[in-house]
């Protein structure tokens, strides 16, 4: 008999906010000292009251819209109770009764073509702390930096049927959420984590098999291996009766390449949800909803097509630019200002990419704004700043996104001089100092001219229109 795998995912995504969801502690736990970003509220002390971070709701709405969801115009928070050392108040504030977004649809593409994956809901909640087990043998060390960092949990319907689809789905979520600038979605940083619900059934059957859940998967490769292993285990159990499948939570050991049933308590799953009396319902009015909707970017493929059609970019260039919303925004801003999409593309795909690499920054970390880049491109094309000096300006723009390229160039002596008197003087000096090159050039060696030209340009610190310099140089040599 042939079997198909039925997979539903619960994906936890850390939202890219400055502060935590209910208190003002920094939300950036990655790389911090243990318990550095903690306050009485997020280490479970009594007396502080939760006040919702507005940006979390903004991002919840944006994520919902990006994933094709309906937004619940009144969304509420609830408490979920259980004891575990990573949960300092012994309850997690989450959304049980009225999550921010429901009924979405995400389109994925695999080798088998396109497919829609339905989203059941997206809810906002606080993250738990981190447990460290490798400092002392008998002790678990508890770090609350991550406690109350805002998350969204994206719950899919069981519409996925292979590791390939799961990978495509996770990649799609990552792309869309990064495009909306709500999350980093980096599994290696723990800013995207995944619970996999899996069962098998004979092809053509409508009845779902026994479902097992693997929690907290944090690499796509591990997820793929786990799905393959679990699928084989389930089919083996159904086909050959090797074991009796039970609905349970399993832990994936990626080193051994096996999943194990987790020891569960009798009381597991009894979370006693109830509405949080301390958090008032959040009502998303028309103005708020519209402003979130209007702030969303086009989907990457829409942008790509438009860049080719509207700006005349090659497929390759369009593909490269649309890899990151930050590149897109920079490109669109620069093109509008300088009027040359081709120049903007070249600057971004060469100089900006170089600087990002040099500074070990991801595309999304680009802060150079498109308007400034456009101004810089104009300075070059209008002959006011030389290309080499323009790169210096761009580097300064990385350090300070507010910087005005023209002002910076002026203040740092990077503007091309139209003072032909100065150029004449420099040309005279250089020609006089290098009679051999002059003779070589006159003897037909074009390269010798380039050497003279380069030395003049260097003495002029690049601040001169290359065309003007070239003409003055040739004219002068002809005279001597």
């Amino acid at each position, binding site marked *: 008999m042939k079997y198909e795998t039925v997979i539903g995912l619960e994906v936890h995504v850390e939202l890219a906010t400055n502060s935590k969801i209910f208190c003002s502690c920094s939300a950036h736990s990655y790389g911090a000292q243990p318990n550095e970003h903690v306050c009485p509220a997020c280490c479970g002390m*009594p007396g502080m009251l939760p*006040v919702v971070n507005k940006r979390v709701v903004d991002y919840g709405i944006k994520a919902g819209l990006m994933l094709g969801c309906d937004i619940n115009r009144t969304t509420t928070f609830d408490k979920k109770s259980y*004891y575990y050392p990573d949960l300092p108040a012994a*309850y997690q504030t989450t959304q049980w009764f009225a999550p921010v977004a429901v009924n979405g649809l995400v389109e994925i593409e695999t080798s088998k073509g396109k497919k829609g994956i339905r989203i059941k809901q997206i809810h906002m909640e606080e993250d738990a702390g981190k447990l460290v087990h490798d400092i002392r043998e008998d002790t678990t060390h508890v770090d609350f930096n991550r406690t109350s960092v805002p998350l969204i949990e994206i719950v899919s319907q069981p519409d996925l049927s292979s590791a390939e689809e799961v990978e495509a789905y996770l990649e799609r979520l990552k792309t869309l959420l990064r495009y909306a600038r709500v999350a980093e979605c980096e599994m290696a940083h723990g800013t995207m984590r995944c619970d996999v619900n899996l069962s098998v059934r004979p092809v053509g059957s409508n009845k779902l098999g026994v479902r097992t859940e693997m929690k907290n998967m944090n690499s796509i490769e591990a997820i793929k291996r786990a799905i393959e292993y679990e699928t084989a285990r389930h089919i083996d159990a159904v086909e050959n009766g090797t074991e009796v499948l039970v609905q349970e939570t399993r832990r994936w050991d990626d080193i051994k390449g096996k999943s194990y049933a987790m020891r569960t308590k009798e009381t597991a799953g009894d979370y*006693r949800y109830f509405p949080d009396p301390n958090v008032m319902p959040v009502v998303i009015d028309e103005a708020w909803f519209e402003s979130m909707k209007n702030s969303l970017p086009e989907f990457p493929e829409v942008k790509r097509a438009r860049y080719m059609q509207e700006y005349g970019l090659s497929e390759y260039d369009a593909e490269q630019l649309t890899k990151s919303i930050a590149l897109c925004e920079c490109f669109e801003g620069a093109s509008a200002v300088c009027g040359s999409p081709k120049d903007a593309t070249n600057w971004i795909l060469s100089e900006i990419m170089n600087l990002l690499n040099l500074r070990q920054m991801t595309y999304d970390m680009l802060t150079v704004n498109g308007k400034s880049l456009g101004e810089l491109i104009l300075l070059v094309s209008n002959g006011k700043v030389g290309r080499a000096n323009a790169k210096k300006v761009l580097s300064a723009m990385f350090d300070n996104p507010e910087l005005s390229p023209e002002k910076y160039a002026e203040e740092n002596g990077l503007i091309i001089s139209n003072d032909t008197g100065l150029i004449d003087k420099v040309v005279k000096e250089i020609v006089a100092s290098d009679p051999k090159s002059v003779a070589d050039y006159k003897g037909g060696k074009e390269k010798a001219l380039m050497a003279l030209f380069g030395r003049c340009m260097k003495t002029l610190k690049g601040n001169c229109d290359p065309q003007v310099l070239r003409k003055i140089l040739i004219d002068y040599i002809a005279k001597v």
Partner: protein
Amino acid sequence: MKIYNAKKEITCDRKIVVDDMILTTDMPTTAGSKMLDGYVSLFEAEVLTRAGNAGYGVIGKTSVGEFAIDLVGETAQDGALIEDGILKSATAEAIKSGDAICAITLDVNGSVRRSVAQNSLVSVKPTYGTVSRYGTIPVACSGETVSVVAKTATACRELLDVIAGHDDKDGTSLPETEIAKVSETKPVRRIALLTDMTKGVDEETSARLDAFSKKLTALGVEVVSVENSIIPVSRVAWNILMSAELCNNVSRYDGVKYGYRAQNFTNIDELYTNSRTEAFGELLKTAIIFGSETLSTENYMKVYDKALRVRRVIVEEFARLFADYDAVLTPACSMMAYPESVRADKYISYKENFYTAPASITGLPAVVAEGAQLIGKAFSENALLDLVALCEKEGK
């Protein structure tokens, strides 16, 4: 006297006490529980900052029953306060003795109102959301309110004026525009005496209620006896909501981050269970177990959700009454003194809160004076206090 002394010398003449549910940074806050023995908060309650800025000085803290859900504080970890076989409240004693002119307390389950009624003091439990709960030990957050106790309505009013106001740090704090409604005081002219709320009271309590009612009538206030079968249901619904919220709020005390930790344990569950079992008292444990069960998957709709719906029924019933009356009059307790023997029933506060639950579950303002309780419309606390002040003036 169950007052923990403040470390600093208090020289001001506006001396106050605060009960042990209000967080202080220079004295421990224990919520009457062994669990928090010696616990010192890193921040102080917003109400204390406001009172301090207005020249009030805290001379000490008054003990409360464990998480303030008992009768008058008798389940405090340092023992019940008993004099001549009568249960006393530390807060009431501090005011009666003149040690402090006012007290700031957290009214969770009416224990403040009961002891105020029994000691002929005055207290005001303001409209929910008008006084910040930032820096109070959370128990039953949907209904508990910071309250003020004093000898007179005027003294209550002065302190309440200082501590009321919007606070960004409390997500349930009302906007200033709403809180301003307390100054739009319309005098109280018609009062409904809820006859169904007087059941179970002893003769003395009944007599106090009558006397107060007569005094009000003499002042030109119309007091009408009204039957109502909905308001008395408050207790049963409130007990469910209070216990469930309590269960959740005290789950944070587990022996890990601060507070009491058991000596003996071999794993995390034993650490949790032994710490909580050793540090919590019996009433609290029962409340936790009961609250937990009301939230179980099986009971949620039947019990907890039902209580939330009944809360709305009660709120709407009050609104109907307030269409005809400016306030309602009820007792605050069933007897004018609790003999020590009432403790034979460990769970007596789950019954005796019959009188205080209506204001707790609705968040309506309640003023206790002359051994009786006035419950008013939202934001009418000043009107209620004015009326009591008028009574006080007449009495002189």
